[in-house]
């Protein structure tokens, strides 16, 4: 099984981070949520590996804010 790579892989992190925030400029919350959903779907398809995607979902849930309810 392939393992998700959590080392720093993006060469210009500040530029990417700004790209991400800028993409949401002028959008209301609903449209922002939809933009994020599109991004997730596009990137997930690019990855294409169910094992990696599953690990990404697990990691994202583990790191969600303290006190957040996590279903068993």
């Amino acid at each position, binding site marked *: 099984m392939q393992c998700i790579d959590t080392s720093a892989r993006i060469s210009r992190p500040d530029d990417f981070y700004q790209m991400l925030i800028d993409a949401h400029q002028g959008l209301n919350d*609903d449209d922002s*949520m*939809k933009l*994020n*959903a*599109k991004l*997730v*779907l*596009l990137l997930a*398809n690019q990855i294409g590996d169910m094992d990696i995607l599953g690990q990404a979902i697990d990691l994202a849930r583990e790191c969600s804010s303290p006190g957040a309810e996590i279903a068993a």
Partner: protein
Amino acid sequence: MAHIASIPVYKALGASPLPHADDQSAEVVIVGGGPVGLTLALDLAQKGRQVVVLSKLDFIPAGSKAICFAKRSLDIMDRLGVSKQMIEKGVVWNVGKVFHADLEEPLYQFDMLPVKGQKNPGFINLQQYYVEEYLIDALAEYPNVDLRCGHEVTGLAQNEDHAALTVSAAGAQYSIKGNWVVACDGSKSPLRQMLGLDFEGRIFEDNFLIADVKFTEERPSERWFWFDPPFNGAGSALLHKQPDDVWRLDFQLGWDIDREACIKPENVEPYVRGMIGDDVEFSEEWYSVYTFQCRRMRHFVHDRVIFAGDSAHLVSPFGARGCNGGIADADNLAWKLDLALRGEAGQSLIDSYNYEAIVTADENILNSTRSTDFMTPKSKVSQAFRDAVLELASKHAFARPFVNSGRLSTPVSYPRSMLNTLDQDHWDGGVAPGSPALDAALDDDWLLDLLGDEFVLMTNGGDARLDGARPVDLTSYQAADVAVERYGLPPGGAYLFRPDQYVAGRWHAPTNAKLEQALAAAKGNADHAVH
């Protein structure tokens, strides 16, 4: 119970008189005269079993019920000799299209018969009452089946080797014993309630309007589904063609509605007009509002009472998995009851129905739950993902497979069934144990016709034979290359099929010992436990 005011009548059958003898019995008593009970009755009739069918109605009901019959159901009905009528009367279709908002081009389309060169089509649409009528006509040929209309079950007692029913008919009561009682008595199953049993699962908070309307217009025979069309602000819509110029129009309504008001003609008309336009004359066949559930019983076999169809499991209608799932139950159960009644199999074969029918129900429930969650998002974020998929799908191929307007009924496989003999050879393709036979032309015949309803040993030459399984040798046909290829069958190899045309096992180099062991396993008589 005779005529019921709230149920529309397609065809009167007349109440059956009280049976003569006081002490009644049958090998199998089927409760319910819908498509599942009648299919099971016909299958058992053809196997020579003695059957009584108790239907509380004395007519075939009309109204909006099942309309989509999938290829696997047609294959089953073909084995029973009624598919020809169904296909001649029905509207044949293979293609489904999905539309979004006001876009004219479909987002996505699918083909329900990806493997061509098979006898039966991917789907037909046909009103359920026609299917019931054909089955009842076919049953009339069998003196070993007694269809009793207007006979309602009011009591049930379980015994060691039979179940006893109390039946109310013609103002009197009588009792009848069945070695086996099969409850095909629908979603509100009185038998399930008499045993104090219930469903487990989810109920969805949504309502749908079904408008069956009649109009004459040339449109392609395809399933058309819309997400958020301009003519329905509340959500999705579906259009299906039925015989006799009847069309099924289906509109999502949302949860908080006035059900009585929704089916008033003046309130239905704007929905219909929105979909078909202002210039088409139409008339009402039947309007109704429904909610749905995705639930099943924990077990389908309870001593001598067995549940099949809606009495055992319920799904949302998107996917045509209700009636088709029930017909699959009847197909799975008939040969097992037959072998048990002939003394060739024991309780373990009946228990395999419980296992396999639950695998089928769970796959149907899983698919219909996912479709429903896509169509009716339950949270803001699931709405956002749904809308994201629909918007991406119009431009990008990768998003189209996510579009879920109902995953339509396909046959379910049981790769881990205790009746299978697992592969010992390496197979490149073919049909794995626990999967249904794949059809192929053989000269002027079809493979599924040749399989019939017995155990069959299909060989590709060689001298493998098996007592208790009818031989079908592909080398005795001129044009068998498609079948050989579809099954990946090397010369001298063999497949063992069950009476419901599922693969029980397959071998590159079969031996008598292996084949006999596999046949015993397929009858539930293996000494080995569940894999």
